[in-house]
């Protein structure tokens, strides 16, 4: 049955599955590079910064109930400005998808499919996500509900297998970091929190409008908790020096597992399997939103005709960087800058103009 309505539980699951993505693999090492043992401060503050923006997005639709993002945008903003915003969002999504796919391929090649060509892994993943991206939003929400428990189980599993040989004292010394580093660390962690802007498309479809804010904030808190747990586990397992050395510490720590009995070793295969789903839950919805935004720019009725034409563009951009360092330096940096515009500035401008519009009309 297609109702195109989304329940509150699905909203929470969507936030978690979209936000937890490629960032989770390298985040502990990225913030540790800047803030040493105090990386968790960057993760925590970076997460808390997103909360006012989630509230703004939520309030935006409560100011003008019954309208979706595009109707709202046309009403409250200058049409050309809104068109520009949409184009920026599409560019951001295309770059992000390319970056996510490229990192995905690199991790895959390092841990699992050593001899498979990059192009084949990339193409397979793109075709797989195009399936979910062509579906209506309700299907994506259902997918999120399936993937969400997998993420939670994976985190619990990660904690359990790491408890026996963790050295808790590795998290010391605490609070040694300067203000400058905190700022840099927050910026480094912000990208890992991008994804909640998907709410702009989801919230108008919500079944129960009153409690959406509660559920979406809950989802964000779960994400912050997941990131903090992953950071503390990898720090206490590795110590600060080795953590800074690792590229993807979240996967690498499972290779450290040594439980009594010989049977649990080399768990990276299991983690990779889970991680494929995590990535799927991130980039599927993103591709969907790119299609939807494009369908409004070109004023078509359906979004799915834009999905397949997008794939070659993503494919080419993903293959542009020559190596992993270039991927991070060029593609990763560009996406980070774009994401600040897309997840902070655009929602904020939308909210402020909606607020002014409302005041003016009510007077």
């Amino acid at each position, binding site marked *: 049955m297609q109702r195109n309505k989304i329940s509150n539980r699905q909203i929470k699951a969507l936030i978690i599955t979209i936000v937890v993505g490629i960032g989770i693999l390298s985040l502990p090492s990225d913030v540790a590079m800047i803030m040493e043992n105090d990386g968790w401060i960057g993760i925590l503050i970076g997460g808390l910064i997103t909360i006012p923006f989630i509230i703004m997005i939520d309030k935006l639709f409560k100011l003008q109930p019954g309208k979706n993002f595009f109707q709202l945008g046309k009403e409250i903003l200058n049409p050309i400005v809104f068109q520009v915003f949409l184009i920026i969002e599409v560019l951001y999504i295309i770059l992000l998808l390319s970056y996510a796919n490229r990192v995905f391929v690199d991790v895959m090649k390092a841990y699992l499919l050593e001899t*498979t060509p990059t192009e084949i892994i990339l193409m397979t993943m793109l075709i797989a996500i195009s399936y979910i991206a062509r579906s209506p939003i309700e299907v994506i929400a259902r997918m999120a509900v399936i993937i969400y428990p997998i993420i939670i189980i994976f985190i619990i599993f990660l904690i359990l297998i790491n408890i026996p040989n963790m050295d808790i004292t590795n998290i010391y010394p605490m609070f040694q970091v300067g203000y400058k580093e905190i700022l840099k660390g927050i910026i480094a962690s912000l990208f890992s929190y991008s994804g909640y802007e998907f709410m702009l498309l989801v919230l108008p479809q919500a079944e129960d409008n009153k409690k959406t804010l509660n559920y979406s904030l809950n989802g964000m808190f779960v994400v912050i908790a997941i990131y903090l747990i992953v950071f503390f586990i990898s720090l206490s397992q*590795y110590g600060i*020096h*080795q953590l800074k050395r690792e590229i993807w510490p979240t996967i690498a720590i499972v*290779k*450290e597992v040594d439980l009594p009995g010989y049977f649990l070793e080399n768990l990276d295969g299991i983690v990779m399997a889970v991680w494929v789903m995590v990535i799927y839950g991130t980039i599927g919805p993103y591709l969907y939103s790119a299609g939807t935004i494009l369908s409004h720019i070109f004023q078509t009725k359906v979004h799915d005709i834009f999905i397949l034409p997008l794939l070659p563009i993503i494919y080419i951009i993903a293959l542009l960087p020559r190596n992993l360092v270039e991927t991070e330096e060029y593609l990763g940096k560009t996406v980070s800058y774009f994401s600040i515009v897309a997840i902070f500035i655009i929602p904020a401008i939308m909210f402020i103009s909606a607020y002014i519009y409302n005041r003016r009309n009510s007077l």
Partner: protein
Amino acid sequence: MKKRTVALLILLTVFLSGCWDMVEINQRLFVSSIGVDLHEEEGMNKLLVTFVYPNINAIGKNATEDRKKYIVSTPCSSIFQAGKEFSTNVEYPFYYKHLKVLILGEDVIKDEKLTREIIDELNRDTKINKKLLLLVAEGDAKEILESKPPQGQITDGTIYNILRDNRSASRFTPQTLTNMITELDCNGVSILPRARKKGEELSISGAAIIKNYKLIGWIGEKENRAISLIKNKVKRELIDICYNQNILSYTITNADSNKKIDIDEYITTNISIELEGYLQGYKMDNQVNIFKNEVLLNMEKALEKQIEKETMETLNLLQKEYNADVIGVGECLSKFHPKIWKTLQNNWDEVFPEVKFNVDVKVNIRRTGLTK
């Protein structure tokens, strides 16, 4: 139309099923131990790498071959290069995911550059299990790998089993790759168990002290026990001392140690060790001889004194002779006194020999076995 779809689906199974890069399990050589020795000082092929892998045909009930393991060695420039080197005369490719033991020859680990190359190669690789156990051979690693195991061996992996199953003992302390790197990052010093040959047989005892990826000396079993006690790595251990001209055996069932650093004029490290255990043996007597509290208390005192003495001697040795912060005073400082550590960090080698130690041992004899 339908027929065409079905035909297409059937055709798809041809192309999509199966795995292109599949390798059968019996067409893989599972390297279980690697030994690295110095081959020549100059030139590219500095290392003599020895691979040990089990003969799969000799495992199980219906074994068709007798020979349990193969040992091959070649001069080459790096460990993985050796794998390629062997491909000229070994039938199947090597598979490193089940590598368990790496033995570094004495000569290799005396060369800091070579050791750093080897460790980086292993730490960077995606296949190798980072719980790989490291040892240092007194002499050549190849000889250790070729030596006869004490008992009839089941398959290859004797060294791994010794390390793994006696991990609670403190005659040697098993060391994993990650743990060693972490210790070298924090303290600049780590210890690796020492493997050596006793006649024809293999024995693992004591430890090699590694400072900045370079071997600086050996320590014996007693010193290793003291270090294990301080680092809280002892689970079960037997301690014998001389008490009233008789041997008193004491089994430790639980050991707990704590380091605390006081800083005033000097850096003083207070180490408190608390042991729990029972009496293993003393002397047969016609009367009840030890089931009295004051006797037990006296025994505890004697044990405390002896352990304290051993610990102090070991600390002295580490400070004065090796100047090696094996027990992690620097690490402790960096974690709990980060400001002071920042000022000391760069000349820690000069500061460490001046550190004062207070060792406080508390021995508890909880039971006396079955008899009074």
